[in-house]
């Protein structure tokens, strides 16, 4: 409460010219050092991009040109789109495999987000007995490697799951045989299951950090849990949902291991990754069409990335609470 009148005299300010005269070397060193992080980033961008560029160029060169010289010795005269013609030809079946990839990657992205968002909200904002323990158990599942579950899962998809009680000699069917072996469904089901721990963990971290007052205000305004989730949590979680969607789409679109295990030789259901690997043919005879195939395969995730990256908005919570 001290409000004694102090008059500010305008003369006491240091002139702008007084700096800069001392330590020109220091200033220059500072200017130099300051640019290093940006420089390193640019270097990384270039180093990371060169193979992609090489792939892109080689995808337009025929077999002999690829064999004869490196992509950096490309001559404009040798550029051709024959490789793309080859892979899109009916015989190769790239078009169908792209649809198969989409049939895997789209459900494998949307379904985990839908389930995990509900679960994350529940873990973050609905008090129930054993909440913490259950959450820790869910997140601990991150430690389980995908590979150990491949064969059991495949067995389940092939014949369902059942237990036989030892003494009674009675067999109980836990999961019936849905005849999923060799289908894209078996692949996205597997992806969905393995995405869950990380999705819940990531979304929970974000959703639990939303301001508590917002939820209380909504409760007083008459919102139940579902309304709060639908009208507050989902709109405010768009950045993290987009981030996870990109991550999960890339991972499932580019997956080879699970698809190969579950679908294997069933050519009509193969995603692009398996098709391209097979395109090389015996002894790598057709290796020259791989760059074109790889480029087509990489194009879709790029589209998804650029489509979703505009949702990485900062300051979505601006103006909500001040604290």
């Amino acid at each position, binding site marked *: *409460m*001290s*409000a*004694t*009148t102090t008059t500010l005299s305008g003369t006491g300010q240091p002139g702008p010219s007084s700096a800069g005269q001392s330590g020109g070397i220091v200033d220059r060193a500072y200017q130099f050092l300051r640019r290093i992080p940006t420089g390193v980033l640019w270097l990384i961008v270039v180093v990371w991009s060169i193979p992609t560029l090489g792939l892109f160029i080689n995808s337009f060169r025929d077999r002999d040109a690829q064999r004869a010289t490196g992509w950096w010795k490309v001559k404009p005269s040798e550029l051709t789109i024959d490789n793309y013609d080859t892979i899109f030809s009916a015989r190769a079946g790239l078009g169908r495999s792209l649809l198969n990839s989409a049939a895997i990657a789209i459900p494998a992205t949307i379904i985990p987000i839908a389930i995990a968002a509900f679960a994350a909200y529940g873990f973050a904002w609905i008090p129930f007995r054993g909440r913490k323990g259950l959450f820790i158990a869910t997140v601990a599942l991150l430690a389980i490697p995908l590979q150990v579950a491949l064969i059991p899962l495949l067995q389940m998809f092939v014949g369902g799951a059942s237990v036989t009680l030892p003494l009674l000699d009675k067999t109980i069917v836990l999961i019936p045989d849905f005849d999923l072996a060799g289908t894209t469904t078996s692949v996205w089901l597997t992806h969905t299951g393995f995405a869950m721990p990380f999705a819940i963990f990531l979304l929970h971290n974000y959703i639990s950090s939303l*301001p508590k*007052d*917002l939820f*209380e*205000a*909504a*409760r*007083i*305004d*008459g*919102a139940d849990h579902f*309304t709060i989730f639908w*009208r*507050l949590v989902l*709109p*405010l979680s768009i950045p993290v949902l987009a981030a996870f969607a990109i991550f999960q789409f890339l991972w499932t679109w580019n997956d080879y291991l699970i698809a190969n295990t579950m679908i294997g030789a069933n050519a009509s259901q193969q995603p692009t990754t398996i098709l391209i690997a097979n395109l090389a043919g015996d002894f790598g005879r057709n290796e020259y069409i791989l760059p074109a195939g790889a480029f087509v395969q990489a194009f879709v995730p790029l589209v998804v990335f650029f489509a979703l990256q505009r949702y990485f908005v900062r*300051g*979505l*919570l*601006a*103006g*909500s*609470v*001040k*604290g």
Partner: protein
Amino acid sequence: MATVQLEGINKVYENGYHAIHDLNLEIEDQEFLVLVGPSGCGKSTALRMIAGLETISGGTMRIGERVVNEVEPKDRDIAMVFQNYALYPHMTVYDNIGFALKLAKVPKEEIDSRVRKAAAILELEDNLQRKPGQLSGGQRQRVAMGRAIVRQPAAFLMDEPLSNLDAKLRVQMRAEIASLQRELAVTTVYVTHDQIEAMTMGDRVAVLKDGYLQQVDTPQNLYDHPVNVFVAAFIGSPSMNLFEADVRLSGDVGTVTLGSNVLGLPAECLVKNPKLRDYDGRRVIIGIRPEDYEDAALAPNVPESQRITSKVSLIEALGSEIMVHFRIDATTVDSGDPDAVEEKAGAGTANAVGRFNPRSTVRMGQTVEIAVSTENMHFFDLDSRQTIEG
């Protein structure tokens, strides 16, 4: 429009912390009641229990005539304004204000007219299509108010709604909220730690400390007749000066001795505080409001016996008045306010603050005569710390 009644309300947290002890409060219809107290006194907890955001460990809570102990917040017919506004950042001001009505399935046309009416009252008409992020602090505060008033609830609950505003805006919004409440005539419970807000806004003020209700009364009565040392020091700024002193009476007059100073008590003083007769020869706590000190040069009518001499340690000139800090060689009394910043004086000396007339010419470091209006002095029992008044 409703009363809010708290009967023997207790709050015990799961970790065993007993936040509120047997709180009894009756808030009348259309009344503006302020809950005030230092940090951690349980005032926000009490408000959140009225809102239904905290469970009630014991006692009965009534809104209107209805017991609401187990009623969900949304069904209590209350609206709450939060300290940090808690606006929905992705919705426009219009949607923020209309959200509760929309959830209550009020027809669209009615929502529209009610939102516009609330916006008109709060002068938000031009900002209805903006989002909270594009508004200034004061405007956000108004949106938070709008969200409350649009529902026409039985009671408003406000949890330190002005604490995030800058000083000037706070003074302005203080007056606006108070007049808005009178206009709408809605029962209001307002929590603050700022005793100036409490004094200026409330019909009545409830002072809490450590989960215990200390006193509920009109602002003026709290100021004039505090029931104990804590309320005496908490209400009023600067705080009441509290010292230990010895009382001696002879007939209708008497003296108090604080340190080396002896102050005369006029007959008026014993008329006001008849119980003081029981304390003859005993040590008590005396309280002197800053305005009951005056530069003796400007108060020639105050008799010689009611003056003390001290050295001025600090002067704060506020234009309309001068705050004069000085030392008295008496034992100071801790009021028990955890937020109070006690100036440390040496052992056996107490800091005192007086509010002098601006015409006073005292200067820092000067030794001056200070007149004390002892007839306005407050007396408290040394052990119980309760008032001796009456």
